[in-house]
């Protein structure tokens, strides 16, 4: 009797503990959103959100907080990364799942996992050592003078960083397409390539779109590696060979000065909020696409 009492007591206590942990974890996104919003409210009270997002002057000491150059830089860097990474990932995923021998895919899995595990500062180091000088050379070929610390460098480094992420999703998606679909197309006399082009890619298209969306959200928030190669000049870039200053870099670069000026602090928190919202948006959309939008 006694024994069962303790057992049920223990059961109740540990159940409560587990449940409260779960509830806590579930509230984290909410807490982050609220926290960042409260912190940026000082800035939002004094400026309209439109001026913040579209004003081009960034002079924190004069209370001018225009995020436009940073937002544009972020978009440029992210797009460059996706434009490079998406086709490479798609082609590789198709090759690995449709053409290569099985053991090769087995070899590639650790390659992808190691790439995914490399910390972003190391990507940054390699970017500084390899890509920055390379881009500088390229720029001189085009008759431009460039230090190499450019949007393009950031984009290339980012594209390598998000490759394992996108590739893993794509491989999973292509693997999950039932063999019978391929067999059906082949037995209608289609060649392997036609089958891939007309049937498999189409079947995988929601997955492809959302993997790219997730890649975008990953690239948009990536900080250290980009920070190290992108140049960090608060001007609106005209082309990919200009330096840029993406939002995460802005936050990371100014953390030391944050506390001294409350408005500045608030501005940096606001950029974190922008990041948070944009990343969540792309995440939610991408996941909706893959779950709900299975058209065919």
């Amino acid at each position: 009797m006694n024994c069962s009492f303790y057992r049920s007591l223990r059961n109740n206590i540990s159940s409560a503990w587990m449940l409260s942990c779960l509830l806590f974890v579930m509230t984290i996104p909410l807490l982050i959103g609220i926290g960042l919003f409260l912190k940026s409210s000082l800035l939002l009270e004094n400026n309209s959100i439109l001026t913040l997002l579209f004003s081009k002057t960034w002079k924190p000491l004069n209370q001018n907080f225009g995020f436009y150059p940073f937002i544009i830089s972020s978009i440029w860097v992210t797009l460059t990364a996706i434009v490079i990474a998406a086709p490479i990932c798609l082609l590789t995923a198709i090759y690995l799942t449709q053409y290569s021998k099985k053991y090769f895919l087995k070899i590639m899995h650790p390659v992808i996992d190691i790439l995914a595990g490399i910390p972003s500062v190391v990507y940054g180091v390699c970017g500084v050592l390899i890509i920055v000088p390379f881009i500088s050379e390229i720029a001189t070929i085009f008759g431009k003078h460039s230090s190499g610390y450019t949007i393009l460098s950031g984009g290339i480094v980012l594209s390598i960083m998000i490759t394992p992420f996108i590739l893993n999703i794509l491989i999973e998606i292509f693997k999950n397409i039932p063999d019978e679909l391929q067999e059906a197309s082949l037995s209608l006399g289609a060649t392997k390539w036609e089958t891939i082009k007309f049937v498999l890619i189409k079947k995988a298209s929601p997955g492809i779109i959302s993997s790219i969306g997730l890649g975008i959200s990953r690239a948009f928030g990536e900080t250290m590696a980009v920070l190290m190669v992108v140049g960090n000049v608060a001007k609106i870039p005209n082309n990919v060979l200009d330096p840029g200053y993406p939002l995460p870099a802005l936050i990371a670069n100014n953390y030391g000065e944050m506390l001294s000026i409350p408005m500045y602090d608030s501005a940096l928190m606001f950029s974190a909020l922008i990041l948070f919202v944009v990343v969540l948006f792309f995440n939610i959309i991408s996941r909706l696409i893959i779950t709900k939008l299975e058209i065919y």
Partner: protein
Amino acid sequence: MKATETEIKINNLNVFHGNHHTLKNINIEIPKQKITVILGSSGCGKTTLLKCLNRLTDLYSNIKVKGEIIINGEDILHSKEDITDIRRKMGLLSQMPYPLPMNIYNNIAYGLKISGRNKKKYLNKRVEYYLKQINLWEEVKDRLKDPASSLSLGQQQRLCLARGLTVDPDIILADEPTSALDPVSSNAIEELFLNLKQHYTTVLVTHTLRQAKRIADYVVFMYLGEIIEQGPADEFFNNPKMDKTKSYLGGTSN
């Protein structure tokens, strides 16, 4: 029963999955424009046998095929002819309907387009023709642009059958085509097979004895990768020779 021509002749077919000997010394003569039913429990190699017939076994690197499969006097396993042309002679119907990720219209038109017939008018006519052949036209004529997956499973399976017919095959290969369907849809498919048999040679894999009895002209009974017994349907069902066949027939006829 009148004497029939042979459509497919399988000689000494052996198949290995890695080290596993899945099909052992298969010899079958599949009669032309009849329904040949391959009967047996799961895992006995029925599906593998079917896939050998249009060389879908090529897709899996761990499967090795030895022997001969002769169609129209040519051994397709060692043929120099383009593999896609060989496959085009055979329509495939799988266990579950796998409509292509396209709308209903394009599911039918796909095979035609692949073989280079792209004229709109021609396609429209053919799509209608094939959909009528499988009695689906009336049900879908107003929603040809809907995704094929919006159809019911039974309709999808019929659509897949029609899709297979579009490339003018001589042979229809069907792998337990009714096992995922409700009885009404199953009957519809069975009826279609009976109707189509005058034009096509049908090879049907099934584990349902009753279905085999209903539609088979020729029966091949397999067990663990070997053929136990084969012969014309009435002979097979009424006068089985082997013990294994007898127990199989006895065990399930109740």
